[in-house]
């Protein structure tokens, strides 16, 4: 992964059980699913919004790299993978292992 690319062809998207909603009280987005939810950081929110089932992980990372020029693509890719892995472990995204 020297160039920061995963080569993964999967296109992650939120699972059917997940709803994303804005929380007026905190200004953060919430990822809601049965019985509980996650409060998303700004970066996490950006990633989740890009998980439409149309982009690969590499495309998501490249998109984010355009607006976060201070962070390397390698780092961004790693962060995106870590985050999606955590969501996939809870069954909150499909198309990512």
């Amino acid at each position: 992964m020297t160039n920061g690319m995963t080569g993964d062809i999967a296109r992650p998207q939120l699972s059917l059980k997940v709803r994303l909603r804005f929380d007026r009280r905190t200004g953060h987005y919430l990822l809601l699913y049965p019985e509980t939810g996650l409060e998303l950081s700004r970066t996490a929110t950006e990633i989740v919004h890009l998980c439409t089932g149309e982009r690969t992980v590499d495309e998501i990372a490249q998109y984010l790299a355009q607006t976060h020029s201070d962070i390397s693509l390698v780092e961004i890719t790693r962060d995106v993978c870590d985050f999606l892995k955590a969501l996939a472990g809870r069954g909150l995204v499909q198309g990512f292992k």
Partner: protein
Amino acid sequence: MNNEYRPYTLIAELTYRCPLRCPYCSNPLGYAGYGNEIDTDTWLRVFQEAEALGVVHLNLTGGEPLLRDDLERLIERASRLELYTNLITSGMPLTFGRLSRFAALGLNSVQVSVQSSGPTESDRIAGAPSFHRKLEVMQWVASLELPLTMNVVLHRDNIDEIEELIALAERVSADRLELANAQYLGWALKNRVALLPTREQVETARTIASKARERLRGTMEVIFVTPNYYSVHPKPCMDGWGRRFIVVNPEGLALPCHLAHTLPGLRFDNVTKRDLADIWHHSDGFNEFRGNRWLPDVCRNCDRHTKDFGGCRCQAFHVTGNACATDPACSLSPDHGLIESARSQASQSAGVPILFEYRTGRGFSQA
């Protein structure tokens, strides 16, 4: 905005009526003595007030919420308020058509209870023929692509079926499997001798559930809730009194938990008489056990009170007679002997058939 006391979940107990008679029902004993159910418009207003307070999850429960013929209107409003709405049901009485309408109106998920992995035993525990219908309903839920939670309340007569229960949940494509040991309050406390499993039963079940959790990670969430009679520390009941949950019961009482009104000397307000935000922030009942000032010394001198909030107030009262005591489930509680003796009773009566009393509207079975 201070998030220390913010309700995220509204538990709407729409009715205490139910076609089933489970002996561990979470409704209060003698629920038939309660007042009339609040009407549709009141519920719609409560949802709106709850959302304004910060609530994002709505549990429609009971009794059996399907017995309310205004469920469609409630789901529609909840969806418009962007509440994540979960229907908690026995699956009866329901048609595929009605469930499809709920889905179209924006219902987010469905939780169906199953009493055992097979029809005979499940129907015996439920006190009514229901198992086959539950299977059908769970298949409907899956076919509508609604997230499905299969819930099983565990006790000594069904806890040895963990493998079969997991297999059943996989067969009906559940997204979540809740293997929740009975909490010994209300009906379950009344039936404790007939329900409390042994430590060996709990440990065996826990091990099997953990393996299934690993195997199914990402596909089906497997949740195992230990009976707090077998945990070293008490549960952070409701994540702390008046911190994260509001229960509104069928007659409109706003409560920190579904049995708070069984505690003596507390005053709770009715949503027909007082705005929900006012009740949440300012009512005596919600403020009674917030913060540290009420804590017994055992808890005050223990670091864990920031995690468990002293445990369950209802358990403290119903087991020790003192609602302000440390939860007796805690090994540091001076009353912990009461829990230990219940455990040894369970161990001595292991394998001996014991009849439980079904829930009835009178509060006491006449059978």
